């Protein structure tokens, strides 16, 4: 059977509450000055936690077949490749041109 039966409304309610709390947390933390680096890391970590909750429970990924995980993972993996490779270029351009000179 598909996944939908495996999750109760109570679980959905708990996930919903967690998502609201994380929204409050990310908004609150944004007002603390932790240095722009840590502010960004914390904001993205909380966003990833929220997205994971939505994926696992609302989208039933936790109870889905391995093949579904492969597709979801492929989307994520492709995105990470694009960000990593592009930023490794953008963020090091000045260093590299400096070396060539």
């Amino acid at each position: 059977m598909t996944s939908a039966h495996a999750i109760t409304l109570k679980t959905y309610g708990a996930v919903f509450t967690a998502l609201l709390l994380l929204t409050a947390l990310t908004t609150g933390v944004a007002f603390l000055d932790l240095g722009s680096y840590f502010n960004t890391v914390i904001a993205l970590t909380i966003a990833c936690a929220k997205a994971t909750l939505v994926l696992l429970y609302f989208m039933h990924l936790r109870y889905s077949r391995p093949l579904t995980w492969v597709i979801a993972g492929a989307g994520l993996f492709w995105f990470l490749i694009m960000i990593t490779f592009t930023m490794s270029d953008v963020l090091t351009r000045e260093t590299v041109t400096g070396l060539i000179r």
Partner: protein
Amino acid sequence: MSDSRLVHAHQFDDAEQQRDAASLGMWIFLATEVMFFGGMFLGYTIYRSMYAEAFAAASNRIDLIPGVINTTILILSSFTMASAVYHAALGRGRALQISLLLTIVLGAAFLGIKLYEYHEKFEELLVPGALFSFPAPFSAAAEIFFSFYFAMTGMHAVHMIIGFGLLAKLLFDARRGRYSAGYYTPVELVGLYWHFVDIVWIFLFPLLYLLGRHL
């Protein structure tokens, strides 16, 4: 009527395999959606790495309250969508219809607030173009930030409008008793789509609204 939907198409072994295939197809579509939005997130990342201070200053000009309210509304609509799938799977037609209707209402509330926010941006001259105005020294880079703001929230809003059409179709069919515990695949697939749109917003909210709040 609805029982005839239990019969699977000839290329599938059984109804369960047919349902799994449909769900997998939806996940593949969502993976392409990651690529679609991914390009904009990448562009945002590049320009933010180049103009970090200007992005933070520009972000502070966005009113936080409507953003927080909208995030809450969208999470709530994801909950009502999840409960729609839940009730559909148990064959509870009435609860399914109510959940779908709530999801539509919440989605409309989100877009209404978004409209108010856009209107605010026009009044404050924060819409990229000839009238754009932002104090020096960040005026040029702030315009880039707001270009991303409108492109990303705009494409997100387009996805929600498409979601309305899908939800309306589900509600229409649910009222005619098209779904049962044995067949509710469309409800499940639209649910996946709606939750994906929610995830996009989960990332847009901190990246657009919360950048420079501590400054």
